[in-house]
């Protein structure tokens, strides 16, 4: 036997070991990354968004906004969005601009119609309720793998499909959560995520429903169903008339853009 053969065997053995040595953290991150990339790859989007807030007695109230998003392709930064509030009617005409960041506070500005004023607001409250719903602002970017540390826990059957079980821990210090446990299907689409609050107790579950394939490559859930296990409220969040690549650019997401949308 020559040395070369021994060398090749060694390399082979070593590489097998490397494959098997993929840790649950690495596998978790890999799945989360594919899941995130699955929902990306457009440039900009616009949509109407409808929220139905339901209390434990079954009483419903409606919230309505229309929004535009600019996808950020910078690997270290987040998307930009601008939303126009429509319902409840007393906030109609209010406009909010967000420049999101991955693991820092976002930059946010509000146009307040009463004074005709644009106000920069603190965004240390990414974990606070969005318009009185069970959704927090940080949940809109909940699939962004860069915001969490990941751990693959195994597989589980969910609605007749085998799904990966992923555990994740937020990196952002002002996050409202300590841990999440979610299920991701074999098309790498998140199906549900359980959120644990700052005390480590189960807070809520978000179910991702009405998956639709956009531009033949992007999977987006057009409904988030959120159930809060502590106050028994729930929120159904629907994207309506979602259109991708309508021709928006950076200039539509500047502070001055607020006044173009404003009354």
């Amino acid at each position, binding site marked *: 036997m020559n040395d070369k053969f021994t060398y090749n065997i060694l390399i082979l053995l070593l590489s097998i070991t490397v494959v098997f040595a993929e840790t649950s953290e690495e596998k978790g991150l890999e799945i989360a990354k594919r899941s995130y990339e699955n929902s990306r790859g457009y440039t900009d989007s616009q949509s109407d968004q409808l929220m139905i807030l339901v*209390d434990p007695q079954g009483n419903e109230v409606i919230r309505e906004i229309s929004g535009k998003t600019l996808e950020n392709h910078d690997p270290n930064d987040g998307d930009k969005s601008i939303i126009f509030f429509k319902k409840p009617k007393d906030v109609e005409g209010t406009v909010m601009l967000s420049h999101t960041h991955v693991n820092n506070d976002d930059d946010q500005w509000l146009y307040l119609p009463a004074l005709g004023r644009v106000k920069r607001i603190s965004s240390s409250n990414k974990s606070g309720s969005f318009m009185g719903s069970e959704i927090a602002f940080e949940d809109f970017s909940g699939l962004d793998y860069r915001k969490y540390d990941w751990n693959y826990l195994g597989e589980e059957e969910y609605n007749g499909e085998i799904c990966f079980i992923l555990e994740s821990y937020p990196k952002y210090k002002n996050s409202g959560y300590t841990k999440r446990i979610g299920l991701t299907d074999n098309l790498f689409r998140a199906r549900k995520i359980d959120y644990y609050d700052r005390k480590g107790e189960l807070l809520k579950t978000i179910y991702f429903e009405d998956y639709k394939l956009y531009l033949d490559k992007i999977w987006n859930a057009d409904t988030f169903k959120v159930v809060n296990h502590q106050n028994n409220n729930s929120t159904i969040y629907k994207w309506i008339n979602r259109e991708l690549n309508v021709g928006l650019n950076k200039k539509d997401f500047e502070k001055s853009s607020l006044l173009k949308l404003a009354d």
Partner: protein
Amino acid sequence: MNKSYTILLYFFLYLCLLILSKNVFALEYKSYGYIQPEFSYFIDGKGKYNQSEDKSSVFGQGTFITYLHEDSSKITIRAIGRYDDKDNNRTYFDLQKFKYEYFLDDATLSIGNDIIFWGVNESFHVVDIINQSNLAENLAGTKKLGQPMLALSLYDEIGDVSIYVMPYFRERIFPGNNGRPRYAAEIEKDTVSYESSKEEKKVDIAIRFSKVVDDFDIGISHFRGNARDPELTVNQSTLKLDQYYPILSQTSIDIQATKESWLYKLEALTGKVESENHIKIAGGVEYTFYGVNDSPQDLGIVAEYLFDDRSSNPFNNETALAIRWNKNDIYATTLLAGAYLDLRGDSNRFFCEYEKRLSDDLKLFLDASLNGHINSKDFTYAFSEDSSLTIKIAKYF
């Protein structure tokens, strides 16, 4: 013609516009507004100037927006008006916005009435100058009158520049004789005088540079034109207050730093009126405790200070302190309570404002305005018996 008829007529025209645009031109538009009946009760009984111990009024606002030519231009109308049962000066109609905007890639051209707000403070709006205030609405001057203008905004990486050319000046609206609160003497409306020979037709000019640099929002502005704030002098024959509008030149800066839950604010200006220079500075902080005690509720604190180097100005050494409680429930319940304190101890005023959504299209507002100690030589002594409780209910459509 009677004012209330004028308001009705405008309201009718506005409705016609909405119906026409929908049925005849098939325009895509947004339209919204509200009607708000209000009732105030004055806890000290009749006023210093024998005004009534209560007042009732109805405020209305309608907004209409439409985009034309594939969103390259926009028409905005915002009409406001009020009918007040006691104060004729508080019964008015105004087109706060009635403008046509044309959007270019890096610029916006706008013509018509508009409301332009400059500044960062919550209480002391020092640098805000473009629009005239309607003091009959409230003495704080936060309700503005639409300013006719031609405006050009240019957007660039270096920063944004806006230029405003204002061909027509609007006089300040003061509370009338039966208004409460009102000034100690009646304000003469018929003999307004100006430093400028062109009077209200003097063309006022303003320019503003603004930029966002990381956590800082910065604005630098210059204004030259008729002062918005008239000098009031007692007319020895009528004993009324005559209004005189001098020419004002003013350069200002406003900065806000947004550092996590802290907002740091500063507004400062140097102004020149009839060759006399003055300086005015106001600033402060805003801090919010988010999710108090692991609840969804927020508690904010605002503290601001105002300094003016003109000792003749009654507001030259003031502070405003307030707390804002935000329940973050589906009713958007909030409570704002605070105080305006004159640091020389001449006048103190306390306020409390509560609001809560009653249903999808109804909102309740409860306001209390309470006077503390007011020195009889202080300008605000005229309002010292005007502590009031107000209820407002807004119906949105």
